[in-house]
């Protein structure tokens, strides 16, 4: 599997570290109830098909990417920076 890094070009997946689902957002402040934290930490949609997930390009540009991939075919539709970059900011 090769991941089309927007900064480095298509690279072998071995250069990257996988984190998982890119959709969950950590509940903050008053929203961070026990149930919401449980949902965030443990529960997963785990879809068969189109999936947005986080990869870290540790052997390349050190950027976090959101990769859109089909979990049934491993075909990659897009790879974008996880955070729209501010100059010099850690992703």
């Amino acid at each position, binding site marked *: 599997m090769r991941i089309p890094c927007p900064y480095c070009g298509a690279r072998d*997946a071995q250069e990257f570290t996988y984190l998982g689902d890119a959709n969950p957002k950590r509940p903050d402040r008053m929203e961070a109830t026990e149930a919401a934290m449980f949902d965030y930490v443990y529960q997963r*949609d785990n879809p068969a098909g189109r999936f947005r997930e986080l990869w870290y390009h540790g052997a390349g540009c050190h950027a976090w990417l959101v990769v859109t991939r089909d*979990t049934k*075919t*491993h075909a990659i539709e897009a790879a974008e920076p996880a955070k729209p970059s501010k100059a010099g900011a850690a992703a």
Partner: protein
Amino acid sequence: MRYSVFSLLAQTLAGHKGWKPAWRDAAPKHEYDVLVIGGGGHGLATAYYLASQHGISNVAVIEKGYIGSGNVGRNTTIIRSNYLLPGNTPFYEHSMKLWEGLEQDINYNAMVSQRGVLNLYHSDAQRDAYARRGNAMRLAGVDAELLDREQVRAMVPFFNYETGRFPIQGGLLQRRGGSVRHDAVAWGYARAADQRGVDIVQNCEVTGLSIENGRVTGVETSRGPIKAKKIALAVAGNSSRLAAMAGMRLPIESHVLQAFVSEGVKPLIDTVVTYGAGHFYVSQSDKGGLVFGGDIDGYNSYAQRGNLPVIEDVMESAMALWPGVGRLRVLRHWGGIMDMSMDGSPIIDHTPIDGLYLNAGWCYGGFKATPASGWCFAHLIARDEPHPVATAFRLDRFTTGRVIDEKGVGAQPNLH
């Protein structure tokens, strides 16, 4: 037909023309008492024990492909009960005891071979961890022996002992561990369940679950609707998809795990060995091929095929442990889909929906658990209470904090 030396002799004299199919290719009826979704090892064992232990035989097992086409056909056939944590030890030991009596119980040759499972250690810290594990096992009535380097060398002399970054210092041996012919497990349970009246329905894919007032009433399938009072999910790899049909989310991700078989060679290794310095394990099948594997691919996948980086990693571990295997060719490799749960342990429990039961999250340790998984799941379905050796495998353990993190690597499926 009961298989015995006499039936074999009679068939031999008759030119082997009288063998019957091992189970009926049943068409689904309109209604069952219990519907088991998933015709793998766990689903078939569940149906068999429902019939044999609880007298519930109005049961169907429905399978989207053919039975044994999923993970029971993918594993590396190893059985063991060398677990450390209280939630796990009695369950896996129960499974081991069921393996020991399985062939007599189901009248089927599953080639249960207690050739031993040897976990190698390579450092003082790892030796201490294995000593602790062995002690925990022996306290729970499970057999365990801590071997030093020379004892290991006497068992498996051809490994790389002297050089390398991870010299072998010894190993933890469970002599009752070993391997079982995996396909025969599916076929044997299917035949034994069928003989007790269970319908084995193949090529029948579930497309929807019918739920009325918080209670399941049946399923929609590619072969029409089927009603059932109780529905049991045993579809490891696809648990999230089935649960989504019931509006549930699970603490599970699906990942590919690959397995490998070399070309057939004369007997080389008469036990199962795991390499403690990397993730690699190897045994030899009765056909002569070395069967081995390593890590999961480590990202969500339903593809049932692996990718090359893990293959390279497994081969590197193999060469580090056993340089001689470099002379062998890999005959084939394949991938299956694992339910990676968030603490690395399984789930056998009710769901919040009445009449819907869940057997999931086996990570990549499901094969050794097959008999006890079926036994405990059948108990839960029949009596609506968990079996004493499976009380820790609750779905709510993630909210109550009672996670079972056997490997101690945290609550993320990509680390197990």
